[in-house]
């Protein structure tokens, strides 16, 4: 399919998914131009410095996607479609209904092949393999990849927020928008917020404003998750009763949300599912975050200014954005720090071509 027709078809299919962002043909074209200039225009080599160059999609691309958010799976497929590759998708065992809906909206000739298991020949036959999931999953596939294949692993990531402000309605709304989608299980979902100033008061204010915030529809929690969340809450209730500065606020009579104030800025595990940790801003944030530096994805900031951006960069963030925008990266973002489209093409350099 020709490039422009393909881009129009992708934009049309993506239009039904507002949470993907603004996928108009014009925006897609701008994105392509930003990353690849004119190099994706077709078989004709384009001037590139002192020589010429063209790009060819790595194809087929095998996408091995995980079940915790459909967002990442869709984005990966979209990138493969944009560069013009043939796409194969290994789905999680439970499937991904959103992906099926999207694929049904595509013209037949660019639809990906999808299966909940690796079909024979997929792993060996793909020119590029994109894996979403744990380090262990990435390691497993990495061991099976040939040097001639491109391997792109998106491991689990941690996101967080840095706030220099008292809590107010708009900020609480932003925090809710960042935390609530996808049951907080995505790589862009913040697991904790560092707050400068009176962090306990901030947490108290947030707990009062949170019940008013809209929450996307969620599947009922399975019993194992509910039990683990209850165990977590009972632990922090005990800590709130016995430790100075620990507070727990929670949705009454259910497990819908919880706000925990922990006076210790140290890293703690979060059971997620709308569990918000508020911690005091450390004296040296970058140092405290250094153990998770390689795992940090997005840091939400409030306010966004030179100082906060510098701190975010020093702390290892791959993306910095305003609180409230953490789940909405722009089309042109560099997922996990790489160029999203340019990673999926092969460059062919042509020298000596007369123009």
């Amino acid at each position, binding site marked *: 399919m020709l490039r422009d027709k393909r881009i129009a078809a992708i934009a049309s299919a993506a239009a039904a998914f507002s949470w993907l962002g603004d996928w108009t043909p014009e925006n897609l074209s701008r994105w392509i131009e930003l990353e690849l200039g004119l190099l994706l225009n077709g078989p004709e080599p384009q001037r590139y410095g002192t020589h010429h160059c063209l790009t060819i999609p790595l194809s087929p691309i095998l996408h091995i996607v995980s079940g915790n958010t459909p967002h990442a799976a869709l984005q990966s497929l979209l990138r493969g479609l944009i560069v013009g590759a043939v796409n194969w998708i290994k789905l999680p065992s439970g499937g991904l209904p959103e992906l099926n809906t999207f694929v049904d909206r595509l013209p037949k000739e660019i639809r990906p092949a999808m299966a909940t298991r690796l079909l024979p020949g997929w792993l060996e036959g793909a020119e590029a393999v994109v894996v979403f999931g*744990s380090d262990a999953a990435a390691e497993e596939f990495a061991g099976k990849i040939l040097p001639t294949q491109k391997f792109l692993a998106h491991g689990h990531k941690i996101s967080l927020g840095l706030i220099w402000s008292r809590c107010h309605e708009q900020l609480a709304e932003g925090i809710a928008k960042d935390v609530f989608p996808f049951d907080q299980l995505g790589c862009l979902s913040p697991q904790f917020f560092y707050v400068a100033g009176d962090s306990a008061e901030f947490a108290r204010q947030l707990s009062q404003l949170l019940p008013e915030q809209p929450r996307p529809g969620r599947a009922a929690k399975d019993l194992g*998750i509910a039990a683990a969340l209850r*165990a977590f809450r009972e632990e922090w209730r005990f800590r709130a009763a016995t430790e100075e500065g620990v507070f727990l606020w929670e949705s009454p009579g259910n497990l819908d949300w919880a706000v925990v104030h922990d006076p210790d800025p140290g890293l703690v595990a979060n059971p997620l599912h709308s569990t918000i940790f508020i911690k005091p801003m450390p004296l040296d944030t970058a140092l405290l975050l250094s153990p998770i530096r390689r795992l940090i994805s997005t840091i939400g900031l409030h306010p966004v200014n030179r100082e906060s951006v510098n701190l975010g960069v020093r702390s290892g963030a791959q993306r910095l954005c305003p609180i409230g925008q953490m789940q909405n990266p722009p089309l042109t973002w560099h997922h996990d720090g790489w160029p999203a489209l340019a990673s999926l093409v092969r460059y062919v350099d042509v020298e000596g071509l007369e123009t």
Partner: protein
Amino acid sequence: MIKSLESEILSFLREPVEERFESLALEIFDFQRRENLVYAKYCDFLGTPDRLDSWKRVPALPQIAFKRSEIRSFPRPQMLTEFRTSGTTGEGHGKHFFPSLRLYEASVQQGWDYFNLPRHRFILLMQHPDDAPFSSLSRMGGFLANFQRDRFVIARDGRFETGRLREELLDPGEALTLFGTALAFLNLIEEIPSLRVNLPPGSMVMETGGPKGSGRNIDQRDLYEQLSLRFGIGTDSIWNEYGMTELSSQFYSRDVRSSHRSPPWMRFQIVDPVTNQESGIGEVGLLRIFDLANLWSVLAVLTQDLAVAQPDGGFLLLGRDSDALPRGCSRAMDELLQSARSR
């Protein structure tokens, strides 16, 4: 006062009177709220009234409290014994302190007798209490086997004393009771793959703990079939003891997927994890346990185990859903913290 309360509980353990459970439980609650500063803080925080009208309203401490604080209802200088949880999750040990083991021992012995469990020859797949002074299970084995060292077949260094174990198992004499953790039984099978004996009639296996911490995923039915095959006994001669370091008494079940029953000095509730309210029969929830013998810490403990109340008055234990959390990207933080702890 303390002595008399301890005596009253001891006498209840010897001769349980159903009607006395409630008042004794509430006396213990009063005592613990008065003497246990951490528990008092917790009750105050929850707004628990000074006077309760039912044992069911006694606040249960989450198990994790034993890791985070000293849960003692007596002054520290009186401490005689400390039991510790295995700490397999890398978060440190939960600790249970005792000024005396009279109640603990009485509960072990009376509980064993309450379920008509045999008192014949023990082979204990555990270390002797002298080698594992912080293990409540070893101490329990010690009480049952009168601390005879030759009944314990795991050495101080954690290895099986396989020679002695073989001799014991091949002795055609009287019936015996093999008692150990499910993990110890699995290790034994791995250590002696050819193990196949026919234990004398009347012999039994008592397993406890499940295969947790073993990295193995084996369900109870498979485990019991393995044990039945290896020891030549029916699965109805295999029992499970369900206890924990944070308690002083044990529940027991017999055969695969059968109810756990308590001795008369224990009660349980199943709590809906979403609402935190008591669930009905047949509904799955978290297990909350009340143990009168737990005088020296707290009467009520909220476990992290899922269970279902059964019409026969017991509960079906489902255990912990270890895969439930963390998922997705929370796993990154969890793995990182686990790895930091293990360094």
